Structures are given as C-alpha cells and as structure tokens.
C-alpha cells in the first residue's frame, strides 16, 4: 500500500458514504444522491452466466488439467515449481564447465618436456636418437659436474695383441662384409638406430682372407639420469677386459640436467665383435644407435710395401756404388742419395706401420646420453606421496577453485545485471503498452 496523504474532509465524507452504501448501512441525507448512484452502479454490474460459472467450477475442480495434452501441464507445473532449481543447476553446470576447462588447460601447461641432446649424441651417425625414452621426472642427480679426459683406463691392454692381423668372423648378410668384398679399397658401413634396445649380437665382420681391412664402430647408449658415471665406468671395464685403450673420454653429469659421456676407444680388431657385444650388454645402459664401418686398404698396404722395397733396393745399389768409386765428388753425391733413400725407407716403414696398426686395431666411438627430462612443477619434482605434498596440492586445488569461482562471478554477475536490467525495462515497456490499451486510440 502506498502511504496515504490526508484527504479533504468533503472527499473523505463522500467516500465513506459510498462505502457505507455498498455495505448496506445508512448514510447522511447530504449524500443521498451519491448513495443512490452507488446502488445503481452496483446493480448495473455484469452478471456471469450460470453455465459459464458451472464450466469454470469444473475446470477449477480439475485444477485446469487439459485431458487432451496431459504432459504439457505437467511440464509447465514442473517448470513453474522448479524454475529456480533449474536456473541454479544451469549456473552450476556452467561454472563446472568453466572449472573443468580451466583445470584441463592448467594441467596441459604444467608438464614441460625438455629435450636436450647431449653433444655428439648420434649426430655423427646421422640417425636420430633418444626418441624412445619415456618422460621421467627429473630432480635426481649427484650435484656436481665431473669431467675427465684421457686414456687412463684400459691400461691393461695387451701389447701382444696389438700387432695381430685382423681376423674377422665369417660375417653373413652384413652390408659391411659385402662392401668389403666388392672391390679393393672399398668401404662398407652399416648403421642401426632405434629408440628401443638394439640387438646385442656382435656386429657382422667383413671377410678378411688375405686382405687388409680396417674396422670401426660408433655406439650410442642411453642411461638413466644419474647413472652416466656408472655407465662410463662399465665402459672402462669392458675396454680393460678386452685389452683395449681409451684414447679419450669425457663424462658430464649435472644435477637437474641430462648428463652425457663420450669415449674414443681402441681395441684389437680381433676383439671388436666381443667388445661391441659387451658394450651392448651393459647393465645400466641401452643401445640407441650403432654404426659399423669397414674399409679395404689392401692396395694401399701393397703400394706402401712396394715403395719400401724399392727404397731399400735403391739404397743397397747406392751403397754398392759408393764402395766401388774412388772419385771424391761422386762419393759425396752417392752418400747424399743414400741418405735420401734411407729417409724414404723410414717414411715408407712408418706409413706401413700405421696402415698395419689401422688394420690391427679398431676404433670405437661411444656416446652415452640420458633421456629427455620432464620438468614438473617445482612441488612435484619428486615422486611419492607425502603429507606436505598432499597439503600443497589441496591448497592449489582450493586456489584454482577460488579462481574459477571468481571468473564465474566475473562473468555471471554482469550477465545477471544485464538480464535483470533488460527484464526491468521489458516490464516497464509491457506495463506502458498495457496501460496504453486504456488510452483513447
């Protein structure tokens, strides 16, 4: 009700007379005419048809149920009674969708795969490496970076085996072997790389009957982070056991980063298959890549040997001429030529020695790397369940939930205000239109 302003006594008296008349009470004779008018107006009011009232009574008795469409009133009733609940459920569903979207997006960005390739890892073999490693959590590592170089290990290599002629096993089906037999001075190479463990069989060796064959290999190993130093020691042990030499080595291990190690090894050619076999079976490493190479240098060895024999024959001839001559000038010239022949003999002997070393000893380049490191968020760096981690995660969930709620409010509140304003404006417009129906057209 609106607050009542004071009415003039005359107006108040007239209104009270009208009300008294309608209630059947007597009125002041002063308002007799007004009372008569009120009675006539009351008597003039439209009266409903009794048949209509009977129909309306029946519909009300049936609670306005329409037999022809029983489902519609039920749906209307359901909607009318649960409109608020449905709106709440709708808002909750929207908020849940937003929350799921935010959580999913945050989870998607929480894991960062860092793929760091150590120096030289399978790069020389031209094949990809390290792809098969599963993502693992980082955070291990021994802390300091250790670097060592030199050929300290493998000092126990037997000298007797160094000059042994290359003896290869009867290789079958290897590309290196077939290449070696195709032509003189030809070279064969076979490489294998895989993200999984390679076969640990010994590499196929070229056929070397009566020929000078050099052999080399590259092996790419993968070890877990923190085991690089251990694997390096295993490599040293293998080379020592096979009477080889470590020409150079480099081991790098840093906390929180994938370590790596590189080795330049030399083993007797006869022990190359066994060495590769043992390197492939290291307890804490997996073979990622392996490349076997061979080259036939028989012609070079023969040429060098022939040149050496020629130089020796020439020197012997020069020495005979020097013994037979009496001319001092000729003797001086022959001595210089004999000296040059001797130097040539030394060079040819050295070259032949190097070639024979290449045939007698095989080189192996070994690279050890760790798989790509997965960096979790700082709090989840280490695995396992702890009460502190659970509390931390719970706190993060609450923070995310509060953020989602804030975002939802930031969206829903303005939308709700706009909707409420539109509804208010619409009600005003509708009211004005309805009131306009009473205005003269």
């Amino acid at each position, binding site marked *: 009700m*609106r607050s009542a302003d004071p009415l003039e006594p005359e107006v108040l008296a007239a*209104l009270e007379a009208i009300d008294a008349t309608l209630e059947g009470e007597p009125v002041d004779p002063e308002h007799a005419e007004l009372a008569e008018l*009120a009675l006539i107006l009351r008597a003039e009011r439209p009266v*409903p*048809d009794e048949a209509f009232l009977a129909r309306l009574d029946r519909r009300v008795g049936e609670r306005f149920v329409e037999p022809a469409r*029983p489902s519609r009133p039920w749906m209307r009733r359901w909607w009318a009674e649960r409109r608020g609940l449905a709106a709440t459920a709708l808002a909750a569903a929207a908020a849940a969708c937003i929350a799921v979207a935010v959580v999913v997006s945050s989870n998607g960005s929480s894991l960062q795969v860092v793929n760091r390739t150590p120096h030289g890892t399978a790069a020389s073999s031209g094949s990809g490496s390290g792809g098969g490693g599963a993502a693992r959590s980082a955070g291990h590592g021994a802390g300091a970076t250790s670097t060592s170089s030199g050929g300290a290990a493998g000092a126990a290599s037997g000298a007797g085996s160094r000059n042994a002629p290359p003896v290869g096993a009867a290789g079958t089906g290897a590309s290196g072997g077939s290449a070696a037999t195709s032509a003189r001075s030809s070279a064969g190479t076979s490489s294998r790389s895989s993200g999984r463990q390679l076969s640990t069989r010994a590499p196929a060796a070229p056929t070397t009957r009566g020929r000078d064959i050099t052999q080399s290999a590259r092996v790419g190993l993968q070890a877990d982070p923190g085991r690089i130093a251990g694997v390096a020691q295993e490599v040293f042990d293998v080379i020592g056991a096979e009477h080889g030499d470590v020409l150079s080595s480099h081991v790098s291990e840093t906390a929180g980063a994938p370590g790596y190690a590189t080795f330049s090894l030399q083993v007797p050619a006869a022990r190359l298959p066994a060495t590769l076999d043992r390197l492939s079976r290291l307890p804490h490493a997996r073979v990622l890549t392996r490349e076997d190479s061979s080259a036939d240098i028989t012609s070079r060895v023969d040429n060098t040997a022939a040149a050496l024999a020629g130089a020796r024959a020439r020197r012997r001839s020069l020495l005979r001429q020097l013994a037979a001559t009496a001319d001092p000038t000729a003797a001086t010239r022959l001595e210089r030529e004999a000296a040059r022949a001797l130097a040539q003999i030394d060079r040819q002997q050295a070259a032949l020695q190097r070639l024979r070393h290449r045939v007698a000893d095989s080189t192996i380049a070994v690279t050890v790397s760790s798989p790509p490191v997965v960096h979790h968020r700082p709090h989840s760096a280490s695995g396992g369940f702890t009460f502190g981690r659970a509390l931390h995660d719970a706190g993060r969930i609450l923070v995310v939930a509060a953020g989602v709620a804030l975002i939802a409010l930031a969206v829903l509140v303005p939308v709700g205000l706009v909707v409420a304003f539109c509804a208010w404006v619409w009600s005003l417009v509708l009211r004005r239109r309805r009131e306009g*129906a*009473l205005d003269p057209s």
Partner: protein
Amino acid sequence: MIASVIHRPDTGTEGAWARFEALYRESRRDLYAYVCSLLGDPSAAEDVTALAYERAYRRRRTFDRRRGEERAWLFGIARNAALDELRRRRRVATLAAEPPDEQLTGPEDGAEVALRRTAVRAALAGLTARERELVALKFGAGLSNGEIASVLGRSETGVSTFLYRTMNKLREACDAER
C-alpha cells in the same frame, strides 16, 4: 485411473490449493464483472476470466502476502489479461456502447428507477476508459480503495481522489441527463 490421478490430493500443495479455491469461490462473480466491464464483451470476458484464474493457479506459489492481499493479486492478474486482450483486439471497451441489457431492468422497477438507470448508463458512456475501469473495480468487483490502489499500482489517496472526482462527474452527467 486418470481421474484418480488428477484428483489425488497433493499433500505438499494442499494448503495452497485450499486457499486458491476459497479465493476463487469468493471472487469469481466480482472478477467476471470487472473483466466484462473492462472489455464490454461477455464472451471475451468469460475467456479472460478463466484465463486469469488459470494463471493465478499456476502462479499461486509466487504469491507474496507482504505485497498485498490475494484478492488484489488476483485482480492484478485479471487486469493484465484483460488489457492484453484489449491490445490484441485494438478495441477499447465502452460500456455505453453495449446495448442495454433488458433483464437488468426488472418488471418490478418503476419508471423512475428505469430512467435513473438509463441516465447512469449514458453518464458512464461519457467517462474515459480509466474512469470506467475505476468504477468497475469499485462497484463491479467490490474492491476497497486500498485494493484498487494495489491493482492499479497507484497510491490509495490518489485512487480515493480519483474516485471522488469520477463520482462527481457521473452525478453531474446524470443530472444533465434528467
């Protein structure tokens, strides 16, 4: 089976239903009189009256007693329905335009009374639509001034003053007719 389902009392809403039924019983004739006065068409008034009760039944849970009495709430619903009907038909009801209902003038009425009634009908025809609506709410529906104010969304004082002026206008028109 269907009838039993339809008439089965809903224990949760039985109180609201009982109140609605009581409101219906006491207001159905008044509501029809108001709507018929507003529309000037008995047939349309029947439809709008039924529609108003159906809407009130559907919205019975939304009724807030703090905002007024149930009777004023019901007449507000009926008024909106009647105004929508008027807008739809683009016609303003004119009570005087309706042919005089012969049955309203009973044979027992004297000539003086008949003359008075004729004069009142003619005076009603001279009123505006809003004045006729006010007369319908007051004398057709029998609402108090406070209830009328609630239905029209005006102050009770304003309604009282408006009613006083309308009655004076009617009286002067009747006097002029005689």
